[in-house]
């Protein structure tokens, strides 16, 4: 099953090595433990995109995070992504909350030494 069938749209952090291996192939074939930060609606995605959060991460990590794309943020670039996310400022409370949760998720991924996956 493709990752987009289960987790679109949102940000994923594998909890263990099994989940990390599964997600890195962009296909899910068995039950796995993940931490999922969903983006429930197109409207919220629009607000988050307009805040520039993903664009900053793209710029800092050399990625192409975008809608209708699945992108792996490797563990080695997570510190750069955290710094980029912390620079993001938004007046919208939902976007601010999402940014904080994204930063928390990235911190946990850094500690557990796993990649992070953007399924947008």
């Amino acid at each position, binding site marked *: 099953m*493709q990752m*987009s*069938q289960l987790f*679109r749209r949102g940000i994923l952090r594998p909890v263990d090595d099994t989940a990390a291996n599964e997600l890195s192939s962009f*296909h899910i*074939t068995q039950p796995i433990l993940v931490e999922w930060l969903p983006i429930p609606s197109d409207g919220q*995605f629009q607000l988050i*995109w*307009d805040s520039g959060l993903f664009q900053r991460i793209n710029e800092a990590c050399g990625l192409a995070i975008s*809608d209708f794309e699945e992108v792996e943020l490797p563990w080695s670039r997570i510190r750069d992504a955290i710094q980029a996310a912390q620079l993001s400022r938004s007046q919208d409370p939902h976007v601010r909350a999402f940014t904080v949760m994204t930063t928390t998720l990235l911190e946990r991924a850094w500690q557990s030494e796993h990649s992070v996956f953007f399924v947008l």
Partner: protein
Amino acid sequence: MEPACCAAAAAQAAAAAAAIGELADASRAWQNAVGSAFVGWAMAQAQAGADFGIAGAIAGATAGKAGAAAGTIYSAAVSKAAGDLTRALNAVQTGFVDAATAASVKATKTIAAAETVERKAVAKADVVLAQDLQSAWGTYAAAERSAVTLNARERATIGADYKKEVAGAELAAVKAVAPARKTSMVATAEANGVYHVKVTGIVADLGILGGEIKVEQVKASHSLISPATLKKWLDVLSTCGDMTVAAVKGLAQGAANSPNGAQDSFAHTGNLFLTYVNTVADVTDAFVGTPKDQRIRVPMIPLVDWSRGRFVAETDSDHGTSKTAGGFGLGVLGPMGYARLASLRNLSTVDGAGLLAKNLATRAWPAASVETAIARHAGNNCTTWLTATGKRIFENPQTGRQVVVDLQGGYFRIFQPNAVGSSKGTYLNMLGREVRPARHTPNGIQNPLLRDLDKGMWQQETHFFIEEILRKAR
């Protein structure tokens, strides 16, 4: 003479002595009696003890004999019981061992028999399977050979017919183009004049353009945008109170770029047709032997970049992206709000041409026709819109299937939602199937999971470079 008192005293003394004598006698008699009695008691006691001892000895001996006899009996009984138990246990154990041995032997025989039957069955099944496979493979191979041969014949026939039809059509087109060309050029010149006058009028009315626009080679009745629509659109946008002058200028630049992009598209389409006509003419002239100085060729429509830097300064890539996106999406630009346009302005910070170049250099995606994909998957009645990231979606209203076009990246994907309107879904290949391409393996042609091949394969099989753009770039 003695006194009376002395006599009395003497009498008393004598009486006392007599009394003492009597007392002594009595005491001796008592002592004798007591002594005699004690001896008798002692003798009786001794006799009794002797009797008791004898009796006890007799009784003890008797009891000892009885105990010894009882103990012997008990030991014998216990010994006998133990012997019985051992024998009984031995008997049971022997019976168990015999039964177990018999059961084991039986089971071994049964299993051996069953395994033999099974092996025979498996062997038979293998033989049948091998025969079936061989037969099926033979049938398949024969059918495939037949189908390939048939297909080759059909294609040859169709190709011949097609070539005949095309040759006929091309000849007719060449004949038809010559008189039509003159009429068309006259009509175009007239239309350009009318369009130029109208646009100049709008420019004057708006008073913000600060100069004239020279529009060339554009039909007045352009199907995508008309001067009236342009004026109406700018009027509506200019009523947005919170927009800055720079934003208005940016929008005006986008508005100018869009018809310019559409003009380019029109010109490219026209040139494509004219190239085709001229090629046919080449072939025809060569065939009929027309002298070179008498050959007629249709001139190409020039590309005029009249919108560049009209209102705001632009880089080459921004201008190119704006023109292409504008021309491509002009039909839906009007209803877009300021926020959506603001998000598009964010996009202008990305070098669109650079992104396409980077993708071409680093991705091994196949190229495919986006027009074919839209026609095949989104259909003729598709709904289209622009996402926050600048991607254009063409959605089939019946199936919900979407063709997602990223003009900046120069590629597209095909997305089938789990249900109409759902954000979750599957990315498909050009045939509309979930991606599991056939691969040559040491065991023949198979459909392995992409995950077992290469992680990049997944991206490769669900992304397609836009063939039309690549063709244009060559």
